[in-house]
């Protein structure tokens, strides 16, 4: 990591449970200071620096804002960089994935908008539970493997959320 820690940028301790309101407030405060618009009249060098700092700030904010990205980042700074794509050995979750997917297909076939709403709520609950489990174990070296597994589950649920959105779009047509 050549750049300073994202958490330090926002004057926060590395943690999974973050005060998102505070994060967002700090982000806006920092963005005010470095945004290129503040340097519309400045020298080219200053403008370039503002551009770089601002881009870095945006990247840090996006990473910390999203639970799955934040989880991944925490694991990366507390251990080693994780490959994006790996074969996951998580049979228990695999089974659940298949169930979720089947349900989603049924919802599509029946064009059941109320059903989609219920599905979305359940998905949200599942994400919440996952977040809590991850928060409890990520900082414990002995549970590293479990933390990585949970992080990958989070990524999957993100993907599923995206698919639900696409389904909503199709049903809207």
């Amino acid at each position: 990591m050549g750049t300073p820690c994202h958490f330090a940028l926002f004057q926060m301790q590395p943690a999974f449970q973050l005060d998102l309101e505070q994060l967002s407030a700090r982000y806006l405060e920092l963005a005010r200071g470095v945004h290129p618009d503040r340097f519309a009249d400045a020298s080219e060098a200053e403008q370039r620096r503002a551009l770089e700092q601002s881009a870095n700030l945006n990247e840090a904010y996006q990473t910390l804002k999203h639970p799955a990205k934040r989880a991944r980042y925490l694991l990366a700074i507390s251990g080693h960089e994780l490959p994006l794509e790996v074969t996951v050995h998580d049979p228990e979750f695999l089974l659940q994935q298949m169930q979720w997917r089947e349900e989603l297909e049924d919802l599509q076939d029946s064009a059941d908008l109320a059903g989609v709403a219920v599905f979305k709520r359940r998905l949200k609950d599942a994400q919440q539970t996952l977040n809590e489990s991850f928060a409890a174990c990520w900082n414990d070296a002995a549970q590293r493997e479990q933390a990585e597994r949970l992080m990958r589950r989070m990524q999957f649920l993100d993907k599923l959320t995206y698919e639900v959105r696409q389904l909503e779009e199709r049903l809207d047509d």
Partner: protein
Amino acid sequence: MALLQIAEPGQSPQPHQRRLAVGIDLGTTNSLVAALRSGLSEPLADEQGRVILPSAVRYHVDRVEVGESAKLAAATDPLNTIVSVKRLMGRGLSDVKQLGDQLPYRFVGGESHMPFIETVQGPKSPVEVSADILKVLRQRAEAALGGELVGAVITVPAYFDDAQRQATKDAAKLAGLNVLRLLNEPTAAAVAYGLDQHAEGLVAIYDLGGGTFDISILRLTGGVFEVLATGGDSALGGDDFDHAIAGWIIEQAGLSADLDPGAQRHLLQTACAAKEALTDTATVEVAYGEWKTALTREAFDALIEPMVARSLKACRRAVRDSGVELEDVKAVVMVGGSTRVPRVREAVAEAFGRQPLTEIDPDQVVAIGAAIQADTLAGNKRDGGELLLLDVIPLSLGLETMGGLMEKVIPRNTTIPVARAQDFTTYKDGQSAMMIHVLQGERELISDCRSLARFELRGIPAMVAGAAKIRVTFQVDADGLLNVSARELGSGVEASIQVKPSYGLTDGEIAKMLKDSFQHASDDKVARVLREQQVDAQRLIEAVQGALETDGDRLLDAEERMVIELQMQELSELMKGTDGYAIEQQTKRLSQVTDAFAARRLDSTVKAALAGRNLNEIEE
């Protein structure tokens, strides 16, 4: 001009100068320029008091006509009169051909892939045509504000891609405007309503123009605007309402749908008039030739319902893209003339569960907001703190990978500025070069995406396939313009490109246009120099008059005073004419004959200041 230099101690000779900056809405159909005056943002009018400048440019052999009169000539001189040029901005010859036969112009290719339109004044690129519109707005602003502009904020649709943004910037440069910022139109509209000043929360901007529909979801937090998502329909607008009514007339009157262009235009004008009338009345009489009947608002609402529904669908999608719910939206801003249609307002109110904001003229709201932002960027502080706009990129940016697929590097709706890197590797043993193909779009296949640029990274040391690590970095600045660089990490060889969009102008073309614009601008320049000379002369006259009033009797004898008054009178006479050189010479002469008077005044001011003080005080 020695007389001007006398000032009371502690007072600056000139009042604090406000830095002049304007907001420009460079629209498809109409353009406007607005500025902040006495704390109020308002559109600037031309000499006839009109604020709207139709985006129509007609080329004559020796001059350029812009605006209302050019628009009227579109029917009689279609080849030399360019309308809706915004649709061509940043487009390639092939894109333009897809627009098809609806465009009457003769296109020719240039040095770049940009299409040029053949006119009596030679080939004109869309950038030049836009620059001609911008020039008129610049002149209008300078005349209205009485000074040179520090810069301008120009608005662009949120969906404008890199090439279209670059083309807009090029046009501004050609028109002699310093672009402080390209601003997304919806953001400008939200600024116009001052939503940054109080509201916190989500805002939707519903923009239904003549030919396009845009919806944007913004989040406001403590004076910061964040664009969360944008969407829309590039083929949906008020013109479709006219077509719906026209279709209804054809059906009701039993006309043949096969009308000649003249009849068609007349029919559409009738339809448009009926649409506009129905904003204020419940029924309107529609007449076409002998045929005549009443169109009720109810029937009209039914005619446009499918289009209104399409716009609402795009709204729901944008809200979903933002990851929020419809109920979370705290304010809806209406932009574009077509939002005057009562059914549109009603449908939007139903969809969002709240009355939309309509107080500001929907045709002017974008320019008004741009002017507010321009004023802030020019360095003029405003009440209620500074405003910060955080925009997103409207379309994903990526690279071509094996198999003709698009690999996204920066997904759409990412906050800018942003820099992101992705690593790639070689696929052949000993491969020494790699082609980087930069793309924009949401589709998987590169053939469905827009090609922005290609460049090559050379000098990769010989290695087995897959051993080289090539990091490609994308950087998007606050205007949404892209820079791409590639670097082989082992050897450090590097290549980069400032994405000259494939359909932008080549440097040669820009140079030629700048040269042309200097030639054509000679008239403008003469006018401008004359105005400057007049201003200088006027300033001197006022200063001399002031000095004569206060010190003339005390410091001048009758003859001296007469000489000064004669020269001043002479200058006043010359100022009524247009001989800039004569004005300049006479200004010098008046300045010369007042030199001695100025020196005496200075002396007496110093003496008066020193009177009654002792030496110690003065040394301090």
